[in-house]
């Protein structure tokens, strides 16, 4: 059972790298959805074993992150009719290298956080931290509002992965509350993206900083 958690974390790490390198927005949304479903599988393989609580949580996370969020975002890009992230602040090849560096950094941090942990927990911690880093990096290095929303979602994925894989004692209500928060946030962001694109004919968040009050 523990092997499965490791495999899921490896999937997260690979998806992080793929997100760093892909420019197509629809592809990015698909990758984030894959990451969400992978995270949804985590409670099923929790250290405590299979439980009704784990199953409920898995179903909620997978449906919300794997189906509902991607559909909201797909609707948003259809409304804004953008397909690609062009000219990010950091190029794709360089982003990929930074992604690898962040992964190495998170392995190092993971060791520092739990010095006595054995191999399995290290990759779990590192996978979660690297996902948070990837989300942050996407937010600061991309121009399009949609990619920044994706970055937020990836960061949330990382935090959820941390909670689901490492701390299994969080009450179900709190987990569901966090999910609801994330849902409302994505919902509002999708609406805002639609409004930005209708008002300005683009969703380039960088240009918004030149607006005068």
């Amino acid at each position, binding site marked *: 059972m523990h092997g499965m958690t490791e*495999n899921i*974390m490896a999937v997260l*790490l690979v998806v992080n*790298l793929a997100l760093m390198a892909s420019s197509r927005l629809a592809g990015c949304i698909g990758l984030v959805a894959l990451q969400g479903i992978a995270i949804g599988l985590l409670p099923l393989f929790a250290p405590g074993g299979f439980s009704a609580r784990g199953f409920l949580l898995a179903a909620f996370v997978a449906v919300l992150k794997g189906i509902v969020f991607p559909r909201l975002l797909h609707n948003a890009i259809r409304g804004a009719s953008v397909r690609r992230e062009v000219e990010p602040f950091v190029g794709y090849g360089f982003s990929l290298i930074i992604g690898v560096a962040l992964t190495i950094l998170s392995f190092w941090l993971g060791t520092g956080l739990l010095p006595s942990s054995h191999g399995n927990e290290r*990759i779990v911690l590192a996978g979660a931290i690297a996902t948070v880093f990837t989300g942050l990096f996407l937010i600061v290095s991309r121009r399009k509002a949609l990619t920044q929303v994706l970055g937020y979602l990836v960061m949330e994925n990382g935090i959820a992965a941390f909670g689901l894989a490492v701390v299994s004692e969080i009450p179900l209500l709190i987990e569901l509350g966090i999910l609801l928060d994330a849902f409302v946030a994505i919902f509002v962001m999708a609406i805002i993206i639609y409004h930005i694109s209708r008002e300005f004919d683009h969703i380039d968040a960088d240009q918004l900083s030149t607006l005068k009050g």
Partner: protein
Amino acid sequence: MSIEKICGYLLALVAAPLLLGVINRTKAFFAGRRGQPLFQAYHDIFKLLRKGAVYSTTVTAVFRAGPPASLAAVLLALLFVPFGPVPAVFSFQGDFLLVAYLLGVMRFCTVNAAMDTGSSFEGMGASREVQFAALAEPALLLGMAVIVRTTGNLSLSGALQSFASCLTTGSAPVTILLLAAWMIVFLAENSRIPFDDPNTHLELTMIHEVMVLDHGGPDFALIQWGAALKMWVLGALVVNLLVPSVAGGEIAGAGIFLGGMLALAAAAGTVESTMARFRLLRVPQLLVAAGSFSILALILVLR
């Protein structure tokens, strides 16, 4: 030096062009054609060997030496590659570096011969080949480092053969990452789609074919055989990762390995039929991705 090792080496020499045939038949199958015969590559090589060579007046001995030298390099490299459970003819501690650099020598000879013609067209191809190879090499060598670290064995034969048995249950990600990285290297180094299309002579995107345009006759036969052998060497690395040493003895294991090579060729053909070639600007990015897969695998085994 035992008879099985020699047999494995000779079988690899003979069977290498068959990979091209399998790839072409797979592509024909996807296109709904019958396709060329399975042994077309052999016919091509024998046909070319019977012809005479034509040399431009501007070329020097470098150009003439290119094809035999690059073939010699890859023949040497093949000596260190195991044939499934049958160990390589030679092996010593650290020979994986030699294999990687023998492939580098092969590339150097091809590139030099291309530059010697003085054609800007071939120089362009040479530049691309070297650029992509420089990016593919870290992925290959870091992947080797993963295997060496896992098995604690520095020779290619020993490390590849004990890799499958050294893996624990939790290390599936390592194998998958390594396979992904080496598969990309395999396709890139052998100039297959998505990196280069061996069938077109479109100057905007050609890499390997453009470098060998001025070779003809026996020289071209040597180049084609050498390319097939290079494909065998890199393919054998990938397949050896997957094929564990089975209990059925060396003959059965060698059979499984041969089947694995043909399956790899079929997989390459499937990739070529279902994917479009990347824009040239995207190629380095994919190679960097292969390198980062290798680094990730290395991180996973280093803990």
